[in-house]
């Protein structure tokens, strides 16, 4: 079970060494590596539940350890599937960016690191791969080597490493108190009193430490900056892998290390919830103000990630389920939105929202997919966003605190309204530019991208609908 972690890293190193000259050869190699790895991951996720593997002892009491449990398996499968789609998309997209050998090398390596995070069996292992993920993704952010991307990479590094360091202190307190950092659903801190100050401190440290990667206020600033990266990176890393790694780590700490019962009703919980609610509103409001499409999506990500953290911070089974639903739903929806934005950028070099007027006539597939994903994100009933909001609200109601529930609910509603405004305005203008708008001139030479892009997009659009319909059974797999 260490294979899915090692294989992509080795493959990535090989790409760096071999320095492929031919595009086709590299594509074959990368596809093979990613698909084989994804297949192994899916196989392990299905049959390998409960497998444990301990390697060298890194810290006394906490060796590097892998274990496959429901949450990890679901997370890994999701990442693996999305990775395959993205890699095909990236073949086409990266042709206009250049430097593909380095790009695909690190892109593939990041896959292995993500598997390390998903299958990590204790906090130390999680932390190890979490740090590695930061470093392995820097070359991807910095890809076009412009001054913006260098700044972005610097900001990203400073934020992530500092955050991880803070989280490490939280982990240290947990390890010190419990003597072990293994993951057990419900927590390992059995002998500690409810709401002990040390535990609250540990929770807050790790919440905000890991929260840096999931862009919780006031540590969100790196994410919009990092959206200068090539679209496959923004899509996969800044909508799915990296940011979700932060959320995943918070989920692990909250539900598998400390245990929600110890924290329910404490000050730490209220601080965390307040931070997420402020972030939800702030992200949506900022997204509305942004006219740059990818930056708008980045702010939208900030807002949507805090939905997950909000669910996790509710410290209940329902909150956890709602959070996980939002985690999977948002991953698939946001990656679609980013890939659509990338397709537009690739075909037309248009980055700003007002440039998209009437583009739906020329790029029907892309914009239809974009529209479906928008509906999914806003939460129009049969699609995923609706059910995650539903479960989050139900969890907020069950939390026992009326003020919290009412407040959370109102914020979710306002945020949904803002989301609707900033996404639907794009869709409407794209398809219905209005009478008298010269669509022909505006769309001169614009067409849908080729199969490498449209097929992943179509698959994702179908997946959004299917996920929306089957959200209950899928999520229950992760929560078992």
């Amino acid at each position, binding site marked *: 079970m260490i294979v899915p972690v090692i294989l992509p890293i080795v493959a990535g190193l090989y790409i760096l060494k071999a320095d492929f000259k031919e595009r086709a050869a590299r594509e074959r190699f990368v596809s093979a590596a990613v698909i084989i790895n994804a297949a192994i991951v899916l196989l392990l996720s299905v049959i390998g539940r409960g497998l444990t593997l301990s390697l060298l002892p890194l810290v006394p009491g906490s060796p590097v350890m892998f274990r496959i449990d429901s949450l990890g398996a679901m997370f890994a499968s999701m990442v693996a599937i999305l990775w395959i789609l993205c890699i095909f998309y990236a073949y086409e997209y990266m042709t206009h960016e250049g430097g593909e050998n380095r790009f695909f090398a690190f892109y593939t390596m990041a896959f292995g690191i993500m598997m390390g995070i998903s299958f990590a069996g204790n906090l130390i292992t999680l932390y190890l791969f979490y740090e590695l993920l930061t470093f392995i993704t820097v070359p991807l952010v910095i890809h076009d080597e412009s001054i913006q991307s260098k700044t972005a990479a610097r900001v990203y590094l400073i934020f992530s490493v*500092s955050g991880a360091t803070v989280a490490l202190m939280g982990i240290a307190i947990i390890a010190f108190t419990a003597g072990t950092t293994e993951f057990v659903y419900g927590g390992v801190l059995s002998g500690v009193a409810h709401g002990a100050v*040390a535990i609250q401190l540990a929770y807050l440290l790790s919440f905000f430490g890991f929260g840096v990667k999931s862009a919780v206020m006031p540590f969100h*600033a790196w994410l919009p900056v990092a959206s200068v990266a090539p679209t496959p990176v923004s899509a996969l890393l800044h909508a799915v892998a990296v940011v979700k790694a932060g959320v995943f780590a918070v989920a692990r700490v909250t539900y598998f290390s400390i245990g929600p019962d110890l924290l329910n009703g404490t000050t730490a919980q209220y601080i965390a919830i307040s931070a997420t609610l402020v972030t939800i509103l*702030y992200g949506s409001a900022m997204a509305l103000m942004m006219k740059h499409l990818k930056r708008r999506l980045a702010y939208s990500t900030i807002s949507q990630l805090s939905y997950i953290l909000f669910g996790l911070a509710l410290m209940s089974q329902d909150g956890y389920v709602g959070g996980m639903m939002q985690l999977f739903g948002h991953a698939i929806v946001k990656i679609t939105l980013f890939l659509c934005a990338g397709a537009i950028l690739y075909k037309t070099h248009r980055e*700003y929202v007002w440039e998209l007027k009437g583009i739906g006539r020329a790029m029907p597939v892309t914009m239809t997919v974009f529209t479906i994903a928008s509906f999914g994100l806003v939460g129009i009933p049969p699609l995923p966003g609706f059910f995650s909001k539903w479960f989050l609200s139900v969890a907020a109601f069950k939390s026992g605190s009326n003020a919290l529930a009412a407040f959370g609910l109102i914020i979710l509603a306002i945020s949904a309204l803002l989301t609707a405004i900033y996404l639907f305005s794009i869709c409407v203008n794209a398809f219905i530019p209005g009478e008298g708008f010269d669509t022909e001139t505006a769309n001169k030479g614009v067409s849908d991208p080729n199969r490498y892009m449209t097929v992943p997009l179509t698959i994702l659009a179908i997946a959004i609908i299917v996920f929306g319909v089957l959200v209950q059974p899928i999520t229950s797999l992760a929560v078992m």
Partner: protein
Amino acid sequence: MTSYILPFLAFWPMVASICSYLIGRKNKQTRNLFADVVTGVEFLAAILLAYTVVQQGTQYFSVPFWGHDGLLFEADGFRAIYAVVTTLMWMCTTIFSAEYFAHYHNRNRYYLFMLMTEGATVAVFCSGDVLTLFTFFEVMAFTSYVMVIHDEKPGAQRASDTYTFLNVFGGLVTLMGIFLLYRTIGTLRIDEIKELCAALPDKRPLYWAAGLMIVGFGGKSGMFPLHVWLPKAHPVAPAPASALLSGVLTKTGVYGILIISCHMLFGDWIWGCVLLGIAVITMFGGAFLALFSVDLKRTLACSSMSQIGFILTATAMQCILTSQEETLQYHFYAQQGAILHMMNHSLIKLVLFMAAGVVYMNLHQLDLNEVRGFGYRKPLLKFIFGMGVLAIIGMPFWSGYVSKTLIHESIVERIWTYHDYEFAAQVFRIVESIFTLTGGLTTAYMTKIYICVFWEKNPYKQDKMDASNGKYMNKASAVTLTLCSLILPFFGMTVYKTMIPISEFAHEFFYMTGHPHEVHFFQWMCVKGAVASLTIGAIIYLFIVRGCLMSRDENGNKVYINAWPKLIDIEDRIYRPLVVTILPFIGACVTRAIGSVVEVIGRIGFNVFWKFANWYIPRKPNAHEFIAKSKEWYPKHKVDGQKNFAFFKKEYDESAIETWDKVEDNRTVTPIERIPVLDDIEDALRERGRKESWIDRLIAAVTKGAKEGFHIPFFHHLFDRSVGEFGDAPMDAHYGLSAMLRQTMAYALIIFATGLLIAIAYVMIVSL
């Protein structure tokens, strides 16, 4: 009983819509025919459903795995009736659409969304739990949006913006109400709601839930004060879409309100009174607006609002009548009035809007002065429209009379159970007089448009109007319209054979109990109400419409004046300013304030940490120096290239110039994202004549921002756009990865050390 007709009704049009789209790309004629067949099959399925319900009682179908608790479809009498009405209307408008849309663009898109809307609408009426209802309600809201905006004219865009905003906003508020309901009673099944709600000791959460839910449902049904989209959207939507919007889609809102008042708050006096107040305003307001309109379809739209008011009055009366023992026996008046008026209004508006569509199809005009005299020599259209008019004004022997009489009776019965001196009796007297007055207004405005279009001659271009005689609509449309219009007198004349059984068929949904009393519709007792309304209508028409709302133009001909009361347009006076200006302003201020707080924290953090981290990295010129230099050299570099450029390059390297270019570019990007770039801040500083520090810069920027519209600089903007504005941090754009890593490590170390100190201190304190 499980019935597979229910999911078929919901999903067949949705599947077919995609087929129709694909067919439409190949052949338009086949597509039209296909759509007719689809809606026809849907209609037959609805009939079959109604037949099954008659035979076997309530039908169910559930899709367990979907979403939260699965989808649940249910059909009892009421829902079956409404499924039939909906599918009938869809079939008729689809047949009519083929001719109406003959010269339109984007017809394929219209058919795609029209069919999808049909599936969603039928599913709304056949929903068995509130979540299913809400799901399809939202789907319907978005698919119908495309039908409203079809023309893509500025008016249509504006109206559909309002429509969709109201939908999204109303949907979210309704969803909150549904949450509250779910939390309070723990289920959303419509047939369980009533008992659980009645058993609740504390009704307050229910009032909250009802108050929230009615925002979405009321908005859709055109209830005051959320009616604003209705008079705007109907005139600009294509006529078949208007017929559907007005006839069916508003009824989905009414259906939601029925769930609130007949299930959640069954027999609740307070809710009944509140709803009655709103309903009376809606009823009277719609009729009042319609009187001033000189746009054919806008009159009909306002009339829809008014008729919805009648239906809501019936619903409210049902709540009021069931709330007390002594009036319980009369509640069937209100219930039968509600269901029958819903059905009648759908069918009447189908006829009227399609007839108006025929006018528009030929003339492409809707202004009364322009379409005047169109029907002067067109007997068939005159007959069709006349049937609609007679039905809607409540003429005895037409269908509208029956339902209006029932609603009127319900109010009268309520008055009779009071003593004359009681305050409540006076209030209900006033309600009754407003009801009669509104009936009069209905007569007046319908007479106005009927006489204008069909009885008067056009003083200027009667020849042009008569040119299309005999060929103004094709056979299919003519047959459809005639048949639809014949339903109205047919129902009205065979009350006891058709309408009363239909309303009794719906008893289950309304919890109707006991045996309804015989109502003698054709005795003087009942007829006198209608006569009063018609008389008032005639007086209003003669004195107000002919007297005040018409004037003579320069040639001495009487024309209609556009007296549309713009002053009381709630949308333009309140909603638009609120949503477009005031709320975003407040929101932007709050967001920017939060952003600034974060920025200040960040700046303090960076200033503090930078003092430490500085030891690790050699000093480079800071932002201020960089800008000063660049400003000095940039113009020269542009004018006289190589020499200065070389100097610049030596000093700051190429990437720095690139930065400066980018900063310059940013200034032209967009007003909203514009940041007060370096110049603004520097100018402000120069004015102040003080030594710079980060706090000075911030103050300067805020001062300037306040003047120009709150462009306070943000942390992320600083990172994002102009590297030059990064406080005292070095311009290390040309530093490379190793310097970055060192810097990062420095930060990390400092944070870690601080944390470690805190941790050690903490452990020491705890162990002490």
